[in-house]
C-alpha cells in the first residue's frame, strides 16, 4: 500500500467572536470606510429582512427567506465581486443583490409574487434567484465557459445552501469547472439547516469544503460570521478565477437565525437554545465590536446608520406599493421572443377575460 494523493482543508478567520484579530488583517480592512460600507450592507439586509417578514404577515408579500445571521456572506460577496463578473444567486442573497444594483423595491416585487422583480432595472446579465435547488451551479459553470470561449477575464460567483450540496447538479458543476478550468467561485452558505434537516443529516463529510476534492480543485472553510475573512477569501478566489482560471469552493460557516422562510416554523425541529447559543457569533455585533474597539465606530454612528437604513427600507416599501399592476397577457409576451401564431388566440382570450373580469 502506498499513498498516492493527500489533501488538506484550511479554515480562515481574521476576527473572532470577541472582535479580536486572529490572523493578518488584509489591506482593504485597514480602510475604515470600506469596513463601514460592509457594515452598512449588513445592517440594511437585517432591517430589510425584518420589514419583509412583517409584510408577509399582512399578505403584502408571499413567502420570504430571511438572511438573519448570514448577512456577512451576502455583504462580503457583493463587496468582493467586480461589476463585470456575473453573480448567480440562490434565493437568500438580498445583501449581495443590493450591491449589484438591484433595487429594494424590486426585491419586494419579486417576493410579492411578480416576475418583474427579476427584470433588474439596472440591467446586466446576473441571474435571477434560483428556486430549484442546485441547478444554478451549472448555469454558473456555463457562464464561465462562455467567458473562456471568448477569452474574457471575468469570473462567476454562485451560491447555494448546505442542503444544496446534496444535489447532483452541484457536483456535476464542480466537476466540469475543475476539468475545464473555469473561472467560477462556488460558495456554500452553510447555515446548518436545510429547512428542518440539520447539516449532520445532509452529508457525512466532515466539512462541506472538502467536496471540492472530488472535482480536483481546492476548497476551504471560512468563518461566516467574520465579514472581513469572508470578503477577503471570496475576493482572492475571484481573482484566482479571473487570472488563472482556477475554480474554488468556499464553505462559509454561519447559522440561520430565522425560520427557513416565513412559511416555516423552526420551533418544530430546532433544538431549544441552539439559536441563542449561536447568537454570540452573529456577524453584525462582531464587526461592531471590532470597529468600536479600534475607535472607528460608535453607538451614535450606529444609531444614525440604522436610522438611515430604516428610512431606505421604508421608502422601498412605498415604492413597491406604488408599482402599477401588471397586465395578465405578459404571461404570453415573454414566453417566446416572438409569440407563435398558435398561441395568439389564447392571448386574445386572456385579454378579453381580463377586461370582463375588471369591468
Amino acid at each position, binding site marked *: 500500500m502506498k499513498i498516492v494523493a493527500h489533501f488538506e482543508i484550511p479554515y480562515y478567520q481574521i476576527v473572532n467572536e470577541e472582535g479580536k484579530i486572529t490572523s493578518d488583517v488584509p489591506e482593504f480592512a485597514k480602510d475604515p470606510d470600506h469596513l463601514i460600507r460592509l457594515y452598512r450592507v449588513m445592517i440594511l439586509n437585517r432591517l430589510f429582512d425584518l420589514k419583509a417578514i412583517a409584510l408577509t404577515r399582512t399578505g403584502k408579500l*408571499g*413567502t420570504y427567506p430571511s438572511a438573519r445571521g448570514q448577512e456577512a456572506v451576502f455583504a462580503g460577496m457583493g463587496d468582493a465581486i467586480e461589476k463585470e463578473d456575473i453573480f448567480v444567486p440562490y*434565493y437568500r442573497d438580498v445583501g449581495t443583490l443590493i450591491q449589484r444594483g438591484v433595487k429594494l423595491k424590486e426585491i419586494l416585487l419579486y*417576493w*410579492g*409574487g*411578480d*416576475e418583474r422583480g427579476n427584470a433588474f432595472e439596472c440591467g446586466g446579465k446576473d441571474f435571477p*434567484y434560483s*428556486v*430549484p*435547488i*442546485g441547478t444554478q451551479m451549472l448555469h454558473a459553470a456555463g457562464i464561465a465557459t462562455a467567458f473562456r470561449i471568448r477569452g474574457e477575464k471575468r469570473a462567476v460567483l454562485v451560491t447555494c445552501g448546505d*442542503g*444544496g450540496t*446534496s*444535489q*447532483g*447538479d452541484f457536483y456535476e458543476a464542480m466537476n466540469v469547472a475543475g476539468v475545464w478550468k473555469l473561472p467560477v467561485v462556488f460558495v456554500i452558505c452553510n447555515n446548518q439547516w*436545510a*429547512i*428542518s*434537516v440539520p447539516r449532520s*443529516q*445532509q*452529508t457525512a463529510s466532515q466539512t462541506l469544503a472538502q467536496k471540492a476534492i472530488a472535482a480536483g480543485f481546492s476548497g476551504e472553510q471560512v468563518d461566516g460570521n467574520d465579514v472581513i475573512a469572508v470578503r477577503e477569501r471570496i475576493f482572492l478566489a475571484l481573482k484566482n478565477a479571473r487570472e488563472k482560471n482556477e475554480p474554488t469552493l468556499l464553505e462559509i460557516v454561519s447559522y440561520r437565525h430565522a425560520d427557513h422562510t416565513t*412559511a*416555516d416554523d423552526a420551533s*418544530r*425541529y430546532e433544538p431549544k437554545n441552539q439559536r441563542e447559543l449561536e447568537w454570540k457569533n452573529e456577524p453584525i455585533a462582531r464587526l461592531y465590536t471590532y470597529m468600536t474597539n479600534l475607535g472607528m465606530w460608535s453607538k451614535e454612528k450606529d444609531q444614525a446608520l440604522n436610522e438611515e437604513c430604516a428610512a431606505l427600507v421604508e421608502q422601498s416599501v412605498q415604492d413597491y406599493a406604488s408599482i402599477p*399592476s*401588471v397586465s*395578465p397577457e*405578459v*404571461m*404570453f409576451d415573454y*414566453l417566446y421572443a416572438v409569440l407563435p401564431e*398558435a*398561441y395568439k388566440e*389564447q392571448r386574445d382570450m*386572456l385579454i378579453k*377575460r*381580463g377586461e370582463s*373580469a375588471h369591468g
Partner: protein
Amino acid sequence: MAEITLVEAINQALAFEMQADPNVVVLGEDIAKNGGVFRATVGLLDKFGPERVRDTPLAESMIAGLSIGMASQGLKPVAEFQFMGFIYPALDQIINHASRMRHRTRGRLSCGVVFRTPFGAGIHAPEHHSESTEAIFAHIPGLRVVVPSSPARAYGLLLASIRNPDPVIFLEPSRLYRWAKQVVPNDGKALPLDKCFTLQVGMDITLVTWGAMVKETLAAANRLAKDGISCEIIDVATIKPLDIETILASVEKTGRCIIIHEAARTCGVGAEIAAQVAERGLMFLQAPIQRVTGYDTIVPYARLEKIYIPSENQIIETVNKVMEFA
C-alpha cells in the same frame, strides 16, 4: 367522528398502512421531524421510528433511485417530493427505471413505489411551486397516475396506490389540501385504481375533470343547474390507466363533453380524453368537445396565478357555448 381535510386524510392513510404493513417506508425531504412542509406526514416519525420514516438529503433523483432499490427487495417506499416542480430531477429514474423494472426483468424484479407530490397553483407559493405536469407521467407506459380530489378519495386512493404492486405517481392538489372537510372512516378500505368517479349525475353535458379543478367544476355545475342545465361531473381520479368507458357512457347519454384541467392545454391529459372520445364516440357527439384548461404559458408567479387557473366563469361560458351548438 371528526371531519378531516384532504391532507389529513393522506396522513391517516399513511399511518393506517404503515401500521398494517411493516414493509411500508416513508421518505422525503423534511417529512420526519418536521412532518412535511404541508404536514402530510406529521406524527409518523413518533409512531413508526426513524428507520421507517426517513428525512433524506436534498436530492430528488436520489429519492427516486433509493425508492427503486428499496422496492426491488420487497419494501414499499412511499416517497414525497416537496413540490411537483422539484420532481423533474427524478424523471430519469422514474422513466428509465421505475416504470420498466418489471418489464425489463420479465417480472423478476418489480417496482411497487408510490411517489407522492403536491401539485397545482393557487396557494401563493414561490416560483416553480405551482406546476401541473401530470401529462408527462400519463405518457409513460408502466406508470399509474392517481389524483384525489376529496378527503375520502385521497384516503381510499392512497391506500390502493400503496397496495398496488406497480409504480404510482400520486398527485395531491395542494389547493384542496385544506379546502373541504369530510368524515373519512379509518377503515382501511381502498378505492379502485381504474375507475372514474361520477360526482354528479346529469343529462345535458358531461364535464370531465380531476384534481383541484373539481372545485370550480362543482361550483359551475351548481350555478348552471339554476339555469336548468344538468351537468354530469366525472372525476377521472386515475389518469393512467384511463377509464374511458365511464366517460364514453356518459357522453353517449349527454351528447356533449367538456374536459377541464389546470395544466397547460397543449398535450395535456385533456387532449387524450378528447382524442378518445372523438375516435370512439363521434356518433354520440351533438357538439364539438371543448377543453377548458390552463394557458400554454409558464404558470405565473403568485400575482397572476388566479388568472391562470381556469375559473368557474370560464367553465360556465364554455358550457353555455356548447349547449347552444346546433
